């Protein structure tokens, strides 16, 4: 039963049908959560005692940074599934995720720089957290460039998967950089094991924003994977029946 479901899910046709039903919900939820979180965080949450209103950048910076790393891990898992089990859909999903991941990494770096000017007094320092995040951006750009150069051939998928998998080593370095070395960047505000280092009226909107960003990730991935399926399976009969094209 479970295996039958997984097999249906892993086939492009089955995924196409399932994602059609799921993606509108994801888009709707993402819009509500991000919209609500923005209004709550930027308008109603209290300002910080030291940083004043510039602290509100946290409501974009933290979700973007979390997503940048999560998307990379998701891409690496998809790469592993593609390389070991040769599931084509996994590679399509990885292709669909990469641009959003690169965008989120850039957003995290940019919002961090904007935040750095008033709080630290500088927009960039070669500290371990900032540098490892920049390397993540380069990894994303590398994966995108590799796919762009080799097209949708099997070799492109393999090369991109291997690059993604090797680059996943950077993720724990980003995560623990603030603990292993002296950095300008402060340690994580949130962890699974301890209570957040801020009161509820500050972290609740942040939680809403984080959930919203993850919904956006799901929505974008579903929609873009659907496009990728249609593009790669264009010569298949089920796609031609769907679009009314072909012989």
């Amino acid at each position, binding site marked *: 039963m479970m295996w039958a479901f997984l097999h249906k899910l892993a086939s492009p046709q089955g995924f196409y049908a399932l994602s059609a039903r799921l993606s509108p919900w994801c888009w709707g939820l993402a819009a509500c959560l991000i919209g609500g979180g923005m209004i709550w965080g930027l308008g109603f949450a*209290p*300002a*910080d*005692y*030291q*940083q004043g209103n510039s*602290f509100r950048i*946290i409501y974009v910076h933290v979700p973007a940074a979390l997503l940048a790393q999560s998307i990379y891990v998701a891409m690496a898992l998809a790469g*592993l599934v593609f*390389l*070991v*089990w040769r599931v084509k859909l996994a590679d399509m999903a990885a292709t669909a995720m990469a641009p959003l991941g690169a965008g989120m990494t850039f957003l995290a770096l940019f919002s961090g720089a904007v935040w750095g000017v*008033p*709080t*630290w*007094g*500088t927009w960039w*320092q*070669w*500290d*371990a957290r900032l540098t490892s995040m920049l390397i993540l951006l380069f990894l994303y750009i590398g994966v995108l460039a590799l796919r762009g150069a080799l097209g949708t051939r099997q070799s492109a998928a393999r090369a991109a998967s*291997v690059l993604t*998998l*090797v680059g*996943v*080593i*950077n993720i724990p*370095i980003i995560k623990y950089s603030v603990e*292993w*070395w*002296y*950095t*300008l960047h*402060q*340690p*994580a*505000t949130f962890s699974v094991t301890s209570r957040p*280092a*801020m*009161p509820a*009226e*500050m972290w609740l909107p942040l939680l809403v924003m984080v959930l919203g960003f993850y919904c956006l990730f799901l929505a974008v991935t579903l929609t873009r994977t659907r496009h990728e399926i249609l593009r790669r399976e264009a010569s298949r009969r089920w796609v031609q029946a769907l679009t009314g094209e072909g012989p």
Partner: protein
Amino acid sequence: MRARRRQRLLIILAMLALAAIAAGLMLYALRSNINLFFSPVQVVAGEAPLGRPIRAGGLVAEGSVERDPQSLDIRFSVTDHVESIEVRYSGILPDLFREGQGVVVLGELQPGGWVRAEEVLARHDENYMPPEVAEALKEAGHAPEDYRDKAAEVGQRLDSRQRADQE
């Protein structure tokens, strides 16, 4: 077929392990260069070079800030509650600069053991709170304690590492 999948999985895991070891060795070799700054303990122990630009980081010691009313000159000490070093600076400070605040100063270590700073950056910690809460904490005499515990922990870690290096 199952055997081939397992083989592929093993190859990938081996590749990942090798890459992780390579990255780990590289980071280990560069460990002192990756640290953005020297702590006062390290500077006093003579780990920081003289006459070259270095970064030193710590907390601005309470009651150590002396401003020259005629100019932008300022003197303060940076401490990790174990050792402290004097910093002299002339210029504009970041908004977050105050006593008890974490800072990173870029400058040259002088033979007298003080730092002529060219740039002062403020660090902030992972704690955020509304102004009223901060006020209440201050009245209860709370916030500096948290800082001190953390600094003592860092100092102990450094001491044990130095001892390990000497052995």
